[in-house]
């Protein structure tokens, strides 16, 4: 590392927006950056700013693809919002909280308490009750299989098949869940400061621990070579390129600081990672050599969400204090 060179900076190119409420999610609708606020609002931070009230209450969960954003709220609603600002209520159950949502190719999944729901574009909604509150939902690549994280493990559910759901067991409370892009692995973030993973081929376990804090953000890098996570005073990258996954290997650590990383977002095409910190700093780092570029200077409020535009040409971010930043490269 060249100790004398000051890291290059893109902060002058960052467009900032004061949103007035805590940011809990971020996504791009086409080329428009959208920040989800805890108070139930989707704030479009593009050329023409727009605020869409998706929920009459707290926005608890968000999933997005290029065409729409699906959100769940404590108003019991699942809402789809499109690029023109129009909203559609996909589901409503008064008195329940929609804790988790996920988007598949032709379906939406969401959970309320212990029940996972699968809502296909065509056809009837299906539900699955799991042993405890759903901590996370993720569709497999083709959208036919759904991973449902809960206490004690992950249930793999094929909503359109008769087959009994398969359960991947591991003691503890599993909160976030993701499939690796090659579909060889399922990884969860746990209530404890650790990740757990399963090799789908043989059910082999992968324990990834050593974090000082609970991991709240994880992302597979382009091509699936690494799983990047928050939860430490740097970004932690577990190697996932080999068939065995990260077992017996040390993770890479990028952007070491004395402040905890709170959020990671992987560039969709290149091996580049955006890392947000609890003091509001955002760094962009090239995974191959650790070269860093400062994107956002610290302002004391944690980065809570980040998203890349699908072509990788822009990055948006938001803080707990209600500020957003948009960087067009």
């Amino acid at each position, binding site marked *: 590392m060249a100790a004398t060179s000051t890291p290059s900076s893109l902060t002058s190119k960052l467009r900032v927006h004061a949103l007035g409420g*805590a940011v809990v999610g971020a996504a791009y609708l086409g080329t428009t950056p959208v920040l989800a606020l805890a108070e139930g609002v989707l704030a479009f931070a593009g050329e023409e700013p727009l605020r869409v009230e998706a929920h009459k209450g707290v926005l608890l969960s968000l999933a997005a693809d290029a065409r729409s954003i699906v959100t769940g709220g404590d108003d019991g609603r699942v809402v789809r919002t499109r690029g023109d600002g129009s909203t559609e209520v996909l589901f409503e159950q008064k008195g329940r909280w929609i804790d988790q949502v996920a988007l598949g190719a032709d379906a939406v999944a969401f959970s309320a308490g212990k029940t996972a729901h699968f809502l296909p574009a065509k056809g009837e909604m299906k539900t699955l009750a799991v042993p*405890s*509150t759903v901590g996370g939902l993720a569709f497999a690549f083709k959208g036919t299989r759904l991973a449902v994280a809960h*206490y004690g493990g992950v249930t793999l559910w094929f909503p359109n098949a008769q087959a009994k759901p398969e359960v991947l067991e591991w003691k*503890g409370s599993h909160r976030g869940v993701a499939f690796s892009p090659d579909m060889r692995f399922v990884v969860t973030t746990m209530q*404890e400061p650790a990740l757990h993973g399963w090799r789908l081929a043989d059910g082999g376990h992968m324990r990834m621990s050593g974090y000082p804090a609970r991991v709240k953000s994880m992302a597979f890098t382009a091509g699936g070579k690494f799983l990047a996570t928050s939860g430490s005073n740097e970004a932690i990258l577990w190697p996932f390129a080999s068939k065995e996954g990260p077992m017996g290997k040390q993770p890479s650590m990028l952007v070491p600081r004395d402040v905890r990383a709170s959020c990671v977002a992987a560039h969709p095409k290149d091996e580049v990672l955006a890392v947000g910190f609890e003091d509001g700093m955002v760094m962009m780092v090239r995974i191959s050599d650790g070269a860093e570029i400062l994107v956002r200077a610290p302002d004391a409020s944690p980065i809570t969400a980040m998203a890349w535009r699908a072509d990788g040409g822009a990055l948006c971010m938001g803080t707990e204090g209600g500020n957003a930043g948009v960087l067009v490269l």
Partner: protein
Amino acid sequence: MADTQTQSKIPVTVLTGYLGAGKTTLLNRILSEPHGKKFAVVVNEFGEIGIDNDLVVGADEEVFEMNNGCICCTVRGDLIRIIDGLLKRKDGFDGIIVETTGLADPAPVAQTFFVDETVGAKTTLDAVVTVADAKWLKDRLKDAPEAKNQIAFADVILLNKTDLVSEDELKDVELRIRAINPFARIHRTQRSDIAIDKVLGQGAFDLDRIQAIDPDFLEAGHKHFHDEDMRSVSFTSDAPLDPDKFFPWIQELTQREGPNILRSKGILAFKNDPERFVFQGVHMILDGDHQRPWKEDEPKVSRIVFIGRKLNVPELEKGFRACVA
């Protein structure tokens, strides 16, 4: 520093009590009094709860073991998620009240506020309030371990339905409570009628507010209703303690005996240390800090107390005495 942090945190009151003791009546009283405060209430089943200004959330009472090698370190997983969600509400709350089911052990609820970082950063456990039925508590202490847990764990006990028993019976049941828990504040009530400031804002887990540990042992109670299963013990030392002996001892003790020790508390005088050290614990989770300088006229006496099951009193006392500097 500690003060400002405590002030900005939302206080959480845990409301327990055996089936039919009067929990829901108390909850309704708290919510319907004209205090101008806004509460979020976490309940297990939607009963007849007044909800004008307040938010009522249904919970699933999911008790999870933490993967940290201690079987007693259980938390309420559903509560972590509910509180995460409540903390996102823009207008906030003056307090959160968690009502447990009648058969619940209060420990997992209490431990949730120490184990989860996000929850612990924004909320603070205020007190465990237990409603007990003056007429039936005696019987429940015999046949329901849950009822015993709720008494042992309490910071505040409402001895309710006092109109259904005589003064002698009341005294008798108070002795039985004291044999288990000599520290809780006991309030006699009818129809859970009590001033709200006797239930909320107790700061029972706030290290800054531990002033003195004055167990109300009521010797007679201990003599007559000595409860082998659940009891409390307290030791004092006029000689200052050695921190290098005390910390390893208390840590090893709570790790090993954590499942049996429900609550612990202490005010300690360490050798060559001008400040009081206070600590409190829930099973194996300990929280302690220097509190304030000893006052000039204040006797530098160390006092420690345990409430628990199957306490080996001679061994505990020997261990404590060995911590003298």
